C-alpha cells in the first residue's frame, strides 16, 4: 500500500533533482496533450497518463508533460504536440497509449519523429 512516508521519500528525491537541474532550464522537451471535451472523449486521458508514466519509468527529467485545451482539429483527437528546443514543433494525431510509447522511444529518446503518426 502506498503511504505518505513513501511520498516524503519521493519529495526528497524530486527536491534533489530540481537542485541539480537548476542551470539547465530552457532545454526541456515539452509534450502537450489536448484535454478539452473532444480530446477526453477520443481517449486523451490514457494518452496523457501514458506519457507521464513513460517519462517517470525512463527517468527523463528533461521532459515536461503538459496539457492544453482544444487545438481546433477535434476529429484528429487525441492530439499531441512535441516541442524539442531548436526544432520545429511536431503534431501527432489520433494518438493512443501504444503510439505514445512509440513516440517517447523514437522521437524523444532517439530523436527520430514518428512520421506516420504526424498531422499531414
Amino acid at each position, binding site marked *: *500500500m*502506498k*503511504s*505518505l512516508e*513513501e*511520498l*516524503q521519500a*519521493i*519529495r526528497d*528525491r*524530486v*527536491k534533489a533533482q*530540481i537542485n541539480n537541474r537548476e542551470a539547465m532550464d530552457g532545454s526541456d522537451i515539452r509534450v502537450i496533450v489536448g*484535454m*478539452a*471535451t473532444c480530446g*477526453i*472523449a477520443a481517449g486523451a*486521458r*490514457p494518452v*496523457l*497518463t501514458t506519457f*507521464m*508514466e513513460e*517519462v*517517470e519509468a525512463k527517468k527523463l527529467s528533461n521532459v515536461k*508533460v*503538459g*496539457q492544453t485545451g482544444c487545438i481546433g482539429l477535434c476529429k484528429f483527437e487525441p492530439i499531441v504536440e512535441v516541442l524539442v528546443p531548436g526544432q520545429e514543433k511536431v503534431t501527432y494525431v489520433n494518438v493512443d497509449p501504444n503510439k505514445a510509447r512509440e513516440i517517447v522511444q523514437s522521437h524523444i529518446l532517439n530523436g527520430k519523429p514518428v512520421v506516420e503518426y504526424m498531422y499531414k
Partner: protein
Amino acid sequence: MTELALNILDISNNSLRAGATEVIIEICADTKADTLSIKITDNGKGMSLEFLKTVTDPFATTRKTRRVGMGLPLIKMEAEMAGGSFDITSEVGKGTSVTTVFGLTHVDRPPLGDVAETIAVLIGAPEETEYVLVYSVDGEEYRFDTKEIKEVLDGVDIRSTEIIVFLTQMIRENINKINGGKIL
C-alpha cells in the same frame, strides 16, 4: 464518453475555467437505494440564473464565454438514460455544484472507470487548484485532499511527474480497497 470518470474530468475543467481554487468531487454508491451519485462542487465565479437555464442545451452555448459546451448536456443525457437525474445550482461569486445520479445497476449506466487517472490529470493541469475526492460505497469512505499532500510535499511542485504517478497509484489502491475491490 466511455466512463463516468471522463465526464468528471470534463466537468471539472469547467470549474477550472471558472477560476475555482477548490473543486470537491464526491462519488457515492448506495447499494440499498441502487444509486451512484456524482457531485462536483467548485468555488468558481458561478453563473447567473439566466445563463444557468441554458447550460444543458448544447446549442444555446455562447461561444464567446467558452465556459460550457457539450460537457454538461452529455452527462445529463447519460444520467437520464440510466434512470437517474441531473441537477445544477450556481450562485454568482460563490460557485457551482453539479449533481448527477445514476441507477447503480441500471443496464445503461456507463462504468465509473479510472477515477485515480482523472484526479491525476486534474492535478497536472496548470491551474493552482486544490482537489478533494470523496469516494464512498455504503458508508465506507476514502478521502483524498491535495492540501494534505501539499503539506507533506513542503514546497515541491505536486505536478512533478514522479509525484503525480505515485499519487495515481495511491488513489487507485485506496479506491480498490473499498467495497472489497468490487468495481463500480
